């Protein structure tokens, strides 16, 4: 059985990270729909296995560059949940003091270099962070999370070529969730597997089931070994599906509820994990429940923290522009 090699701690981490993201997103969705959260919110529901499977193998000294859909990455990388929640509510106590919001969530203290409102803005940032790692002869890695749609940006190409030409320690993790906003990715993307593009940069690649955290974890470990051996970058494509609308409030006129529900029911990374560990008797329902309870407490705490925090004072508008 493939899972016997995973110890209890690791299994708990997987479940904990995924559940934390899921419950965080559900909470944010509710408060957004209630009009309590300003701006744009892009939810990571259904894709939790990717950020969780990847970030489990990273430390605070490793970097990630994220996307507009960045809550999952941020949480999986270990950012302070209270601050993340407060930021999304626009509070002074948020990680960005209320200046960023959902689309610009970041926590530099754990190597999370920021979400990005510009699709494809993260490729070069991650590449640059990897360059710094190499120049400083550190043993860390840098990870760029990105969507299928963003792989059509020129920055994808420039970053991947530079990373490979310079053999930088960066792992490009494609979250192929089948959609770029309202557009099925295949209608504007010339290839089925984004990872085939890695060949154009002399870069190894691997495709994994992005809704199977074990597959993501293993695939990423392979990437990590390759990259840490000094071979240069690696391309990991995780196939998944965007369960929610592109943003909260999206009328979703471009697909049917049935299509989405089908996947939510049958290919939900969290349900799949639960069923698998239970049927393999690697975890008990009791254990899972304990984790869920822990998550619930943390979410509630983060929510209270956010709700009870103050908004920034208008005068703070001029802070933090220049050093």
């Amino acid at each position, binding site marked *: 059985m493939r899972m016997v090699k995973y110890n209890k701690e690791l299994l708990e981490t997987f479940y904990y990270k995924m559940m934390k993201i899921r419950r965080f997103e559900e909470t944010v969705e509710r408060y957004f729909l209630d009009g309590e959260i300003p701006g744009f919110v892009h939810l990571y529901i259904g894709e939790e296995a990717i950020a969780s499977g990847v970030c489990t193998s990273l430390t605070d000294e490793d970097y990630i560059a994220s996307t507009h859909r960045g809550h999952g990455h941020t949480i999986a990388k270990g950012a302070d949940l209270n601050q993340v929640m407060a930021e999304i509510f626009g509070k002074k106590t948020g990680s960005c003091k209320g200046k*960023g919001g959902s689309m610009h969530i970041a926590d530099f203290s754990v190597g999370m270099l920021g979400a990005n409102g510009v699709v494809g803005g993260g490729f070069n940032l991650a590449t640059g962070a990897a360059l710094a790692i190499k120049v400083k002869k550190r043993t860390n890695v840098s990870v760029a999370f990105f969507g299928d749609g*963003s792989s059509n940006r020129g920055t994808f190409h420039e970053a991947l070529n530079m990373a490979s030409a310079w053999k930088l320690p960066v792992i490009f993790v494609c979250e192929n969730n089948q959609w770029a906003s309202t557009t099925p990715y295949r209608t504007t993307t010339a290839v089925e597997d984004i990872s085939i593009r890695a060949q154009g940069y002399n870069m190894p690649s691997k495709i994994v089931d992005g809704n199977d955290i074990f597959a993501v974890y293993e695939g990423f470990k392979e990437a990590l070994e390759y990259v840490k051996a000094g071979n240069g970058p690696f391309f990991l494509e995780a196939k998944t599906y965007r369960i929610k609308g592109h943003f909260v409030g999206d009328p979703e*006129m471009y697909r049917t509820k049935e299509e989405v529900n089908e996947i939510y029911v049958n290919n939900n990374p969290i349900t799949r994990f639960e069923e698998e560990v239970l049927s393999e008797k690697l975890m008990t329902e009791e254990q899972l429940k304990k984790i869920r309870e822990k998550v619930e407490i943390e979410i509630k705490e983060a929510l209270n923290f956010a709700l009870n925090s103050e908004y920034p004072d208008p005068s*703070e508008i001029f802070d933090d522009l220049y050093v």
Partner: protein
Amino acid sequence: MREITFSQATLEAMAEEMRLDEDIIVMGEDIVRQGGIFGQFKGLPAEFGERIMDTPISETAIIGASVGAALAGLRPVADMHYADFLGVAMDEVFNQMAKIRYMFGGQTTVPMVIRAPDGLSLSAAAQHSQSIEAWFMNIPGLMVVTPSNPADAKGLLKSAIRDNNPVIYFENKILYKEKGPVPDGEYFVPIGKAKVAKEGSDITIVSYSIAMKKAYEVADLLAKDGINAEIIDLRTIVPYDKETILESVKKTHRLAIIHEAVKQGGVGSEIAAYVAEEAVEYLDAPIKRFGAPFTPVPFSPPLENAYRLNSEKIAKGLKDLF
């Protein structure tokens, strides 16, 4: 006159022009299946089929291919999704689109329009809230229009599509839902001509796009103090209408410029400088510019509010001129 929204006005302009000219095509991200992120393309795909195209997330290709298509006989309209993404395609805009006609000695024209939704909306934050029209004042070869109401939105868009020069059409995101009177039948608003939106005798207020709302508010506030402001809606910022501005300033002897974009290096700087160059002797007071503070747009509502133009503050500043 019938009242329709700004968004609908742009739709009418597009549909009317597309019916008349098969060479007009439209491309942008997410415009086919849901009619654009602000609904500004709704219904066009149904009527015009393959002439409305969803693009990859490839802004350099959207603008660059539009330029190439224009060179080969089409009249593309390219949607930028958000004006904030013009930076991605900036080389295509300023080194290709703007220069091709001139640097090739007039061999060709580049008849195309870039539609660029801009401005503050509700906490869209630093990368989705910008107004960057001032950059393009400094780039020869483009025309730049900035409608402030549904009637102008339609008339300027039709003019832009018909024009054989490349035009950037900045459309404010908040204005999309605003209703206003729009003439029946075909009409055009000429590019390069400002409109005296309100006549007045005591001070000239120059504005455009969403900030025109503030201009009216400010004029109302000033009126309470017996100050009769003249309001000029620039409509086009490249080329801007020097005559209309000068004429007004010579009459009122005072000038203020209001825009939502960052004040420093903004359109207001050019207008102020022009008047200080050509009509300083007519001025009875300093020229006042009002625009955004020199910071990126912050996310949190109280910060974003502090960032916005404030009619009371502007009116107060202007009263001090008297």
